[in-house]
Structures are given as C-alpha cells and as structure tokens.
C-alpha cells in the first residue's frame, strides 16, 4: 500500500522550477518553485484570482506553462519533464500514477454511466477484462468512500453533491496513484458534508501514502489536511512553510490578512 514511500533515491516526487504562465497579457502565476515529497500533502491557498488554479493546471499537466519545468520522479517514469514528455506518456500518467479531483464532480465523472462503470474505467483502461472482478473492485471502493454499495448500478446524477465527490475520489484512487491533484474538493458542499469528506480524505491519504497538491481558499481545509502550505497572492507565492507555522505565525502581510479575516468570520 505505501509503495509511494519506497523510493531508491531520496529525491522529491514532484519538482516545480521557475514556473510562469500568462493568459493574454495577464500573469496567471509567476516564478513558482517548490518540491513535493512522497506522502506529503501540500495546500495552495489564496483568494479567487490569486493564480492558484492556474498553477494547479500547469503542474497537473493539463496546461502548458509559458516557461519553467514540472518534473515527476517515480519508478516506471524515471525523471520525467512533464511538459516536454510525449503525449502518450502524459496520458498514461494521468490514468494510472496520477489522479485529478475536480471542483465540480460533474467535470470529473461520466454522468451517463453507473457508479460502477465510473470506478471501473481506469481498470478497463489498463486492460482488465473480467467483468466480475471489475465489479468487485467497484463495490469495495464504494464502501471505502462510504457510499452504499447497493448504488453501484445507479448513475451519478442520482447522487448528492457529497456522494458525487466521493465517487470522483474513488474513480481516481482505484488505480492506486502516487499523486493526486485536487481543486477545491469541498467547494459547494454543506459544512457537515465537507467535514465528512475531509475526514475521509485524511484517512485515505494516510492509508495509501498519497502525495497531494490541493488548491483551496478555505484555510480550515488546509489546517486539517496539509503538511505544508503555499500562500498565493496576485500570481505569486508570498509565503510557504509548515501549515501550523504559517497559520499560527504568518510573516507576510497578505497571509496575516488572510488568517485574521478567518478569525473574524
């Protein structure tokens, strides 16, 4: 299970160097550098417009940066410059070693097929051809994300928002990835539903030794899940460090503003 922990060299799982992205002449994100280690949860926080989603799109391989590099290291991939690599390699990566959990679960699920088919897709994509076995795994995963297995043949449009999000997580985790990218996974959910989802995520991350890059505007989510925090403001990383340190003792003026506004609310 914790295969992510077993690496030959003591090198980061993901390395971002000098990343810049412009949309039109508006800077999306500028001069971003960081490392991510196996099993580590990194949270990128900021308000809307801070550039955090742009950054996530670049490092998850979905959008090409204007300049800079994203390097992934793992068995089977060696040292991979994600944006210079062949498309076939990137596509394979996105279906196996990596997972992407989108803010709106409808963007990350096939709404027209059952929950079981959604979960089974990654298995079928890598060649699994036993219906019975695929269905078994789907049932197992539904239980793990706390969805009634009796719903395996139901379509996601009959699920609540929270359930859809948990289904999306299962769909990604079934291939036992090393690295997950999440964009506001609790956005649009009720507070109590959020809490349940966060607990689930925390448990799964620990059980599977997942590395996670999670984007959010909600500091409470960061506090609960993240080992480290990166604060973004107007496209730049203004502060970075261990979660508790940054939240309890913010150095940058913007971070201070962010933290204090939470306390006031």
């Amino acid at each position, binding site marked *: 299970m914790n295969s992510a922990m077993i690496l030959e060299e003591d090198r980061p799982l993901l390395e971002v160097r000098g990343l810049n992205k*412009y*949309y*039109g*002449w508006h800077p999306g994100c500028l001069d971003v550098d960081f490392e991510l280690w196996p099993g580590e949860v990194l949270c990128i926080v900021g308000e809307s417009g801070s550039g955090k989603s742009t950054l996530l799109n670049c490092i998850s391989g979905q959008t090409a940066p*204007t300049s800079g590099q994203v390097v992934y290291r793992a068995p089977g991939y060696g040292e991979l410059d994600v944006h210079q690599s062949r498309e076939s390699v990137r596509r394979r990566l996105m279906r196996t070693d990596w997972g992407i959990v989108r803010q709106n679960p409808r963007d990350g699920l096939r709404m027209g097929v059952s929950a079981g088919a959604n979960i089974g897709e990654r298995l079928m994509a890598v060649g699994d051809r036993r219906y019975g076995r695929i269905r078994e795994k789907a049932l197992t995963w539904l239980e793990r994300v706390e969805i009634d297995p009796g719903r395996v043949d139901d379509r996601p449009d009959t699920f609540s928002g929270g359930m859809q999000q948990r289904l999306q997580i299962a769909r990604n985790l079934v291939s036992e990835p090393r690295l997950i990218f999440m964009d506001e996974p609790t956005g649009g959910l009720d507070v109590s539903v959020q809490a349940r989802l966060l607990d689930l995520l925390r448990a799964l991350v620990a059980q599977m030794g997942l590395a996670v890059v999670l984007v959010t505007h909600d500091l409470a989510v960061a506090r609960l899940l993240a080992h480290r925090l990166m604060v973004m403001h107007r496209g730049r990383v203004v502060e970075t460090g261990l979660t508790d340190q940054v939240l309890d003792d913010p150095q940058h003026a913007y971070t201070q503003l962010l933290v204090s506004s939470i306390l006031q609310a």
Partner: protein
Amino acid sequence: MYVAVKGGERAIANAHALLAEERRGDTEIPELSVAQIRSQMRGAVDRVMVEGSLYDRDLAALAIKQAQGDLIEAVFLLRAFRTTLPRFASTLPVDTMAMDVRRRISSTFKDVPGGQILGPTYDYTHRLLDFSLTGDATQISPAREGEPSAQKFPSVVSMMAAEGLFEQDEVETDSRAVGDLTREPLTFPARRDVRLQNLARGDEGFVLALGYASQRGYGDGHPFAAEIRMGGVEVEILPEELGFPVCIGEIILTECQMVAKFDGSAERPAQFTRGYGLTFGFQERKAMSMSMVDRALRSEELGEEIKGPLQDQEFVLSHSDNVESSGFVEHLKLPHYVDFQAEMEMVRSLRASRTHKEEGKENE
C-alpha cells in the same frame, strides 16, 4: 405494414420517367430554357456555382433546370460533374484590388477613396411583391450606372494597415503550399486555407446561421464590415513555355473583409483581426457570413475564450457540406431491415429478461 423495399430495374426506370414528366410539368406552358435561368436567376446560379465549387454559369443553370430548382440537388450535380474534369493548370492568385468594381461599400468609414458604390443591390429596396413582374414583358427603365472608370478602389484594410492597427497578413509568414480540400482528406486541426475552402463551398444556410450566432454571444465581440466589393477579376495562368502570365478569362467575385477588435495577449498587442469571405458571383450574404465564421474559427489561435460549437472547427467544418449532409440524412430511406431485425430481437430479449426479473422480485 412493414414490407421489404425491393424493386427491379424496371421500377427504377419507371421512377425516372415519372420524374422527367414532373420536371417538364404542364406542356401548355413554355419550357424553361437554360439561357433564361442563366440570365434571370442569378441568385440561384451563383449559389450553385459557389457550393458546387465550379465557375460555369451554363452548367449551373442546366443543373438547376435538371433539379427542378432544388439547389442542393443542383449543387450535387455540379460537384459530380466536377469530379470528372481534368486539371491542366492552377491559376495565379486573383487580385481583388484590381477588380473591375460594380459594387463597393465600407461600413467602417463614412467616406473612402473611390467612394461607396451601391451597385445592383437589394439593400434598401422595400420588400413589397411587385405584381408588374407577373407578365413576361416587363418594362425596364435603363439604370444610370456611372462611367466604367479607370477609378481605382484602394483596399480599405490596407489603408488601415498602414497605421499598424492590423495584424500582419499570414501570407507573408507562411510559405507552405496551399491545401486542396478536393484532393486531400480533411484532417484536424485544419489550417486556415483549408478552413476557408470548406466554408466557401459550405451550405449558405448553415454558414449564415453560424454567422448569426457569432453576433448573439456565441462568438467574440462585434465585427465591422471594413469592405465589401463585387465585380470582375481577371484569371491568369503562367504557362512554363511562355514565362509570362496569360489571362484566360474574367470571373465575378464577391469579397468581404470583416474586422474585429482584439484586446491583445502576451504574444500580440491590441489590434484589429480579420475575417475573410469570398464567393463566386454576387453572393454577399454568404461572403459576409463566411468571413464571420472564419474569424470565429480563429479564436483558439488567438487565445480567446471558446464559448460554443461555432468556434469549434471540428463541429463547423464537418457539417458544412450540404452534399454530404443531405446524402447521409437521406440515406435513412435505404433499407435497414437487417439491422432493424437485430434491434427488434434485442428489444424483445431485454423486455423478456426484465419481465423475468420483475416476476422474480414479486415471488420473493
């Protein structure tokens, strides 16, 4: 009753004979001549030439007669004929700036060198049915057309380009050979030359609807008609043996250049970008819509937000051809009973297992 569609050669021959009779219609009424269609139905003839991708007024008129005025059928006839024609040369690019202008307007400036020439347009006519046309000897008072002047009409767009407000012509930067949609299969992503060919021969209704959609929020912003011109241009070829261009004839073209503001990006400063439309004959509506769709299809290249199918070249270019679309839609008339049989069996089987399941549940 569902009965197999079968028919021998005789049935088909009978159908064709019936068609010929219907085409001729009431024999008391004089037969329509190809010359009449050619000279008095320019709208239909020009459209068939444009979508048939063949400049020949007589053939287009013949096709229209043969198709009883069904223009898509006429286009099909012309295209099939075109397939059989050998090619003996490619022309030099025509110079629309050297056009013998019959109509030229610009909506971006009140006055332009050369002036605004209305020409034989329906614009500003009042759409009142004119019953004086029901006879066949209509009195025409001669129109006053200006002297065919040596007047030159400089390009409105070039004049604006001098100020540096326009994007640079792609032609100067792209030295690859021009594609040919009739000789190479359409693949995606398609380059602009092929996209323009596709739109030029695309169905007028389809391109018009998309142009309309671009004005209603499905595209980006408000375009302006910088220049529309219609008139005769010379067609030249360059025979190797001679080493100089030879004019082989003159054709009528309608050209439309639309301009739209572009706010700029990291790669380009703010500027006016262009959409281009070109048709045989006097097909202004088509040239205008074509230029709008051309511009919309450039959204991705310009980094603009993609709002809908109008900016999606696969959607637009795959469905613009009315010979293809009518063929496939109408192919549903062909027998499909073998597959339908298979579907019937499938539906019966699925219903049976559902009933079985439901009975099973009731018995629990």
